[in-house]
């Protein structure tokens, strides 16, 4: 897979405070990549360095195969965490302006904006001043502004913060739509549930350091620790009594079962099916929160609660 963004041993300090410490990760093209971690972990600084807004003290960053330059900047859609709009500008003028500084001319911008207006239900607001728009409407304008130049990579810092549930669902839908067009999306969030269903790849950071990164599915498998979700017409006692079962915990009507290391799962399932009615049998996928906590522990860092 081609590389969209590559960070090698990137560090950045502000005075004595190390904001990012020896961070490396690779974002392949065509994926949704989550940069995850608690507030103050260095996500925004990392994103700003990718955008060439601040420069790293050491390390190298390449975007679309080379160091970020003006031409590359025009191929990226960036939505910073601190995002706002000129309050007194008309919505359409504002979109034209943000397109113009990406070197998109007005007719082209107009065509692209038109495509999004109905989808976002923004058309009646086009000639209104930004001031007169609700917060949710302004967020839609910001989102259109981020994609008006048809970028290859979207970089979104805390994209879901401040979005209502409807807009959150909409944005998730757009992001998946974007990926299906072969575009790359990098987004940061401190709310892990938001990344859970969306990300193909993740990088977890805490206290300026990377804890782990990689493909989310592989990570989940790795952190499943041989645990199995079992939905079965049997009691906890009966399940524990099954051959090969080390432990069994009921959770919301299913059992989380740990099998002995030498047990063949297919054989275990066959034997169980002979005795009981099994509705579901699957690898238990650990939630991101759980992965994060065990990774933090493994990294020897003290535990940082990720949910405030």
């Amino acid at each position, binding site marked *: 897979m081609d590389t969209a963004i*590559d960070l*090698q*041993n990137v560090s950045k300090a502000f005075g004595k405070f190390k904001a990012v410490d020896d961070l490396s990760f690779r974002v392949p093209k065509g994926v949704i990549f989550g940069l995850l971690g608690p507030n103050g972990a260095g996500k925004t600084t990392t994103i*700003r*360095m990718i*955008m*060439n*807004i*601040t*420069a*790293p*003290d*050491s*390390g*190298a*960053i*390449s975007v679309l195969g*080379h*160091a*970020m330059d*003006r031409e590359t*900047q*025009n191929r*990226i859609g*960036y*939505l*910073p965490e*601190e*995002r*706002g*709009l*000129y*309050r*007194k*500008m008309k919505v359409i*003028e504002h979109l034209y*302006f*943000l397109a*113009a*500084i*990406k*070197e998109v001319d007005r007719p082209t911008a107009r065509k692209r904006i038109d495509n999004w207006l109905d989808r976002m239900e923004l058309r009646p607001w086009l000639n209104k001043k930004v001031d007169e728009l609700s917060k949710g409407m302004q967020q839609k304008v*910001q989102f259109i*502004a981020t994609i008006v130049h048809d970028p290859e990579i979207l970089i979104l810092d805390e994209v879901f913060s401040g979005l209502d549930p409807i807009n959150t669902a909409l944005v998730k839908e757009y992001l998946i739509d974007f990926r299906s067009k072969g575009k790359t999306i990098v987004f940061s969030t401190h709310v892990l549930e938001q990344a859970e269903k969306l990300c193909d790849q993740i990088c977890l950071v805490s206290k300026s350091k990377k804890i782990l990164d990689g493909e989310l599915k592989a990570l989940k498998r790795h952190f499943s620790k041989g645990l199995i979700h079992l939905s079965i017409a049997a009691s906890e006692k009966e399940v524990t009594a099954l051959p090969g079962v080390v432990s069994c915990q009921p959770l919301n009507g299913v059992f989380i079962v740990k099998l002995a290391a030498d047990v063949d799962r297919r054989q275990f399932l066959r034997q169980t099916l002979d005795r009981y009615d099994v509705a579901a049998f699957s690898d238990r996928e650990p939630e991101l929160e759980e992965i994060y906590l065990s990774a933090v522990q493994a990294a020897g860092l003290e535990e940082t609660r990720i949910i405030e």
Partner: protein
Amino acid sequence: MNWKKIFAVIRREYFERIRTKAFWIGTMLIPLFFFVYIGIQVATSHKTGGERRIAVIDGTGSLYEPLVADLAEREKARQAGPGGSRGIHWVLERRPAPADWNAAKERLRQEVLQKKINGYLIIDPKLLEKDSAEFYSTSVSELVTSNQLERALNHVLLKARIARQGLPANLASELERRLDVKAFKVTEKGTAEEKGAGIFAVVIFTVIMYSTFLMYGMQNLKGVIDEKSNRIVEVIIASVRPTELMMGKILGIGLVGLTQYFIWSFLAMNLSLPGITSRMSSTDMGVPTIPISTIVYFVLFFIFGYFLYASIYTAIGAPFNTDQEAQQLAMIPVMFIVSVWAFFPAILNNPNGGIAVFVSLFPLTSPLGMFLRTSLSEPPVWQIVLCIAILAGTTVGIAWFAGRIYRVGILMYGKKPTIPEILRWARYSPGKAPQPAAPETT
């Protein structure tokens, strides 16, 4: 530098400002004030014209008739002159010399208060020995009125004294002919007559420069702070370099200023100027003739000065989040600009003296200082060149410094930074990421 992007910024700055009501109200209010001012001038100048009814008590008994004749003669001479019929028409009323001067004065006072007469002139023989007479009116401050009366009276008195000595009567006008000292400015191209209006025009040009530096400089500061408090700046910085954004903003706001001047001069040419010039030609000042060199220097120092102060204001605005936080530092350029006024008399008195040379070379005062000097005298060419060199160097230096502070400052939210912190920002590594092949660059 990507001029396409700079142009987009200029375009936004320009049109968004031109579209505001505040711009048009400001643009229209100032000429309106000017018209009202001129209107008041015209209205009050009518007062200096018109009829003056003056009662005269002539204690000498011999001065009244010559005075009436003299005033009539002056009026006739004036009507023949270029000013036309405007001016004062004197109507004198003779009152008999009283036994009790004080009672007579009191009676006349009542008449003035009842508006039967505009004033009264007392020629007391006793007073006259002490070279004095008395003129009473409701508005003694009406300089023209009392001046004309005084001049006429002096002339009449002189004639009388000459007659008393048995000298020829025409000696009076001979003796009264005053020497008119005309002021000429010596320049390398020769000599040119210096008129009061020349200085008047220079002052107007200076006021224009001065207010532009303050008003539109401040607009730059406000613009920078607005972008920060709106949280828009990071979105823009992802597409436009800080120096480009700064450049676009300064140019855009400068163009708004030029538009305003264009509207004003258009209004002036078409509405008020004919009135003003006809008024001026009727006074001693004469129509201002503005030398081309003054205009060239004006444009030159105007542009340099604007860029200098706009960069200073941008640098001041960048670290702060509200106008209030920036206020303290924003006073610094104001102080320098205003200080030129304090030096104005010194420059006027001695345009090539030490103070004038310093003010015209020190970069924070030189746009105004050197402009004043070039229009009042002819400073050495090397000083003008040095001034422009220092000014250009300082502008580039401050723009560079402002750019660096701007780059860091626009991303700083939250607490108000201290000045040492701001200075440290200027030393941060520039915003160019190193190449992957050479990861270490310091």
